[in-house]
C-alpha cells in the first residue's frame, strides 16, 4: 500500500489518461455509429453486408488491430483511439439499427398522420423510442473499450495499462492489482451510470 500513498499523483494521472481516451473514443464512436445506423435502418439491403463488415473488424483481436494500424497512424493515442472506435462500431451500429427497427410502425404512421416531416419524426419520435436499445449498446461498448484501452499503454498511449505493464516488467504485483482494480472500478461505475440512463430512457419512451 505504500506504493499507492507515495505514487498517488502518477496513479491519478494514468486514471485521467484512461478516462480521457475512453471518453474520446466513445463520443467519436457514437457520433459515427448513430448516423450510420439511421442510414442503414432506412436502406434495408445494405444492412447485412455493412454489419457483416463491421463484424469482421469486431472479430479481429485488439492487439492485431493495433498492430495493423501502426504502419498507418504510428504509435500513440491516435492509433489506440482509431482501433477502439473501429472496434466498437459493430455493437453501436447493430443496436441503433435494432432500436429503430423496433419502433412500432403504427406510431410512425400516427406521426406521419400528424404532418411530421421525416426529420421531425426521426428527432422527436423514432430516436427517442430507440434510445433504450442504443444506450444498451453504448453500455456494452463502454465496458469493452475501458478494458481494451489497457492495451493502449503498449503503444505509448498511456492509461492504466501502464501499471499492468510496469507491474509485469518490474515484477511488482501491487502495480498490477492497482491497475486492475481501478480499470474494473471505472468499468463498473460507467456501467451503472449508463444502466440508470437506460432505465430512465425506457420509462420515458414508454410514457411518451
Amino acid at each position, binding site marked *: 500500500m505504500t506504493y499507492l500513498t507515495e505514487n498517488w499523483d502518477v496513479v491519478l494521472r494514468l486514471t485521467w489518461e484512461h478516462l480521457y481516451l475512453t471518453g474520446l473514443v466513445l463520443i467519436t464512436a457514437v457520433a459515427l455509429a448513430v448516423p450510420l445506423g439511421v442510414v442503414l435502418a432506412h436502406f434495408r439491403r445494405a444492412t447485412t453486408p455493412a454489419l457483416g463488415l463491421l463484424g*469482421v473488424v469486431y*472479430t*479481429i*483481436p*485488439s*492487439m*492485431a*488491430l493495433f*498492430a*495493423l494500424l*501502426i*504502419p498507418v497512424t504510428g504509435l500513440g493515442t491516435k492509433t489506440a483511439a482509431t482501433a477502439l472506435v473501429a472496434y466498437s462500431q459493430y455493437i453501436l451500429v447493430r443496436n441503433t439499427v435494432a432500436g429503430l427497427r423496433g419502433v412500432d410502425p403504427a406510431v410512425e404512421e400516427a406521426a406521419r398522420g400528424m404532418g411530421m416531416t421525416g426529420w421531425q419524426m426521426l428527432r422527436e419520435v423514432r430516436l427517442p423510442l430507440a434510445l433504450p436499445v442504443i444506450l444498451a449498446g453504448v453500455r456494452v461498448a463502454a*465496458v469493452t473499450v*475501458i*478494458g*481494451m484501452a*489497457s*492495451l493502449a499503454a*503498449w*503503444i505509448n498511449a498511456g492509461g492504466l*495499462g501502464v501499471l*499492468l*505493464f510496469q*507491474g*509485469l516488467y518490474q*515484477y511488482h*504485483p501491487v502495480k*498490477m*492489482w492497482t*491497475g*486492475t482494480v481501478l*480499470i*474494473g472500478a471505472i*468499468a*463498473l461505475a460507467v*456501467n451503472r451510470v449508463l444502466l440508470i440512463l437506460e432505465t430512465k430512457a425506457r420509462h420515458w419512451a414508454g410514457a411518451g
Partner: protein
Amino acid sequence: MGVFVDAVRYIAANSDRFLEALGIHVGLALAALGLGVLIGVPLGIWAARSRIVSSVSLNVLGVLRVVPSLAVLVLVFPYLGLGFRTALVALTVLAAPPVLINTYVAYRDVDPAVVEAAVGMGMTRGQILRWIETPLALPVVLTGVRTAAGEVVASATLAAFIGGGGMGEFIVNGLAVNNVALLLVGAVPVALLALLFEGVLAVPEHLARRRVTS
C-alpha cells in the same frame, strides 16, 4: 505494398518459426477452449438447477467481466511464472465465463412443460438431460463456445507478453525493433485465425439451431 512483400519474405525465410508459433497459438487457444467447456458446461447446468450456485457464479462472473483480458494474463504471472502453462491458466479463466453463462441460460430456459411431459413418459433424470434438455439447450451453449473461442484466440496474442509464445511474439518483437513487416507477420494471420474460428464454430451452432426449430 512493400511491407507486405517483406512480411511474406520473412515468413518464407522463417517458415519453421512461423509454423511453430502458429501451432502454439492454435494449441493454446484450443486447449483453453476445451478446458473452458469442461468447466463451464457442468457448472452452467448445475447453476441452472441450483439458486445458490447460480447467484454465486453470476456474481463472480459479473466482477470478472470488468477485468481486462490483459490484466488476467499479467496477474497470473507473479503466481505461476512465465510460460505456456501460465498462459493456459489465464486463457481458461477467460474462456469459461461465456460458456458458463450461456449454458446456464440455455438449460434454465428449457420449457418446464417439455420436461414434465418427459417425466410423465417415465424417463429418468439422466435420460431427460441427454435426450430432451441438451438438444434444446445446445444452440445457445454453442453460441457461448463461439464467444469463448473469439476471446481465447484474441487473448492468446497477449500471451506473448508473459512468454506464452504464439503469434503475438512477432507483433511484440516487431514493435520492439520497429519492424513494420514483422508486425504484419503476426497481425494478419491472427486476424485471419480469429475469423476462421468464428466461421468454423458457426457451423455446428447453425446445425443445432436447425434441429431444434425443425
